[in-house]
């Protein structure tokens, strides 16, 4: 099986020869400075140049043993296209929003629609086209900023969170607009050849929103996205939920994606209990990945696989100063433990 067949089979709930080891990109960062040197493609330039973007993610695949490629390397492409000011950061720091696009929920008319033919949205689609040519057997993951996280990149999160209670109709209007735009951007990435969609929504953890607001403001919009990409493009989705998902309980299983990825504090057994029908993904501590010895990382990865994780992956974005030998340590666990995917 090649990397693409293995990941797509696993996400489809079909038999695979072993569990894949992936690191999607986006919030779930895969780029480290050592790879930037090897690929001669460094942040921040790689955020706005399709050649460099493709080269850096390919280096993660070829040198780090990560069994996918993925774009972009941040969560700011959509917000910038819609009107937020963004700093692209530095070699060791990811891009971030420096100025929100709007100040109040009733200003959403001022938000611009994402134009996938322009700016860094186009860079991402172009990078995917390069990756499809360069590495046709490696799955390309298109990373979308989760709807709540995008909304709270366009308006101050404090204003947004309060609005969920005090002005819920307008908050829903913003969520609808954000979701439409994510579809527009996702369409372009899917048409460029993306094989999998990954949505990470760190601003929508159960610990921040609570169960009720998570059910009202996170799940419906995430589900519109994943159902759309499945039905319109035949593409499966991974949804990463930050924080302790135990406070969401059985709500977790209402997320319509094929796979759910969780943070390091959640055990894979808990994930399987709460969302038994989902392909489980996770959840090696990125702190261990950065600081641990390669052998310990391999052992930890093997433990995750023996518990039955379906896709081995870091529990969050990896730190840009993580040594490549550590990433390869995790890759080794996937190569050595041949547990067939059991669903």
């Amino acid at each position: 099986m090649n990397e693409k067949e293995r990941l797509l089979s696993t996400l489809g709930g079909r038999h695979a020869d072993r569990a894949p080891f992936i690191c999607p990109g986006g919030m779930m960062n895969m780029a480290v400075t050592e790879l930037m040197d090897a690929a001669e493609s460094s942040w921040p330039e790689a955020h706005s140049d399709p050649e460099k973007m493709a080269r850096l993610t390919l280096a993660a695949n070829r040198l780090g043993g990560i069994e996918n490629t993925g774009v972009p390397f941040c969560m700011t492409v959509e917000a910038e296209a819609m009107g937020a000011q963004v700093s692209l950061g530095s070699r060791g720091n990811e891009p971030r929003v420096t100025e929100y696009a709007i100040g109040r929920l009733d200003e959403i008319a001022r938000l611009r629609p994402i134009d996938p033919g322009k700016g860094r949205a186009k860079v991402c689609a172009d990078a995917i086209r390069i990756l499809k040519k360069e590495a046709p057997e490696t799955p390309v993951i298109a990373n979308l900023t989760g709807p709540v996280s995008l909304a709270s990149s366009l308006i101050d999160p404090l204003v947004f969170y309060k609005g969920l209670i005090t002005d819920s109709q307008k908050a829903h209007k913003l969520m609808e607009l954000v979701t439409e735009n994510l579809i527009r951007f996702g369409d372009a990435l899917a048409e460029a050849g993306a094989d999998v969609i990954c949505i990470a929504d760190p601003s929508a953890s159960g610990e921040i929103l609570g169960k009720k607001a998570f059910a009202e403001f996170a799940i419906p919009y995430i589900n519109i996205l994943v159902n759309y990409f499945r039905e319109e493009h035949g593409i499966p989705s991974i949804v990463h939920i930050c924080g302790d998902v135990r406070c969401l309980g059985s709500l977790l299983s209402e997320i319509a994606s094929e796979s759910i990825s969780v943070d390091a504090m959640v055990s894979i057994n808990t994930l399987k209990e709460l969302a038994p029908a989902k392909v489980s993904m996770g959840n090696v501590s990125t702190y261990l990945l950065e600081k641990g010895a390669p052998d310990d990382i391999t052992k930890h990865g093997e433990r995750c696989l023996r518990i039955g994780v379906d896709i081995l992956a870091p529990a969050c974005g990896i730190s840009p100063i993580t040594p490549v030998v550590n990433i390869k340590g995790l890759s080794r666990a996937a190569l050595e433990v041949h547990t067939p995917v059991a669903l």
Partner: protein
Amino acid sequence: MTRERGDILKDLMDGVFLMNEELVIKAANEIVAAGYDAYDAINNGLIAGMNQAGVLFDKEEYFVPELLICSDAMYAGIEILRPHLKVGDARVKHKVVIGVVEGDTHDIGKNLVKIMMDAAGFEVHDLGRNVPLASFVEKAKEVGAELICLSTLMTTTMDGMATVIEMLKEEGIRDAHKVIIGGGPISQAFANKIGADGYADNAAGAIRVANSLLAKVAA
């Protein structure tokens, strides 16, 4: 007709923790009009309500949106009452410097801790987010802060917390400032490892840790 002090205080408290800012504003204006003590109204009305909201947050009945709305109501009431404080009301408060360490812009957790510290009667100096590490030390020296609170949500910026502690050591003022750390990837084990004085896993916990550290200093 003037209502009893206790009835108005109850409105202030309920208004804060039931997220009813209009009720708070009405009751605060009533305190002023009746000539009741503004300091008493802030402490036994508004702050008591915020502390109740903190209890609900601790019990996972309230979450971030609720706590933010409660704090807006509290601050709206404080705005009205503050001009009516008497000269002798300003007690010496414990001073705190708080911020999100450099490289990280996630400040929701830090904001919650700030709100609860305001409510708990600390004098809070908020440096904001993505704060250069040396600024924590400078500000703590400048205002004579007893506590430095460091927050981060990212594993990539955790080590900045250790750097702040090293800077305090280098300047020979480590013992003058207690350091409390918190945020998503932070644990008690990490706090022990870098030699922080305390760790808190949520906003209410931060107040408990702060008070217990200050009690130790006093003892």
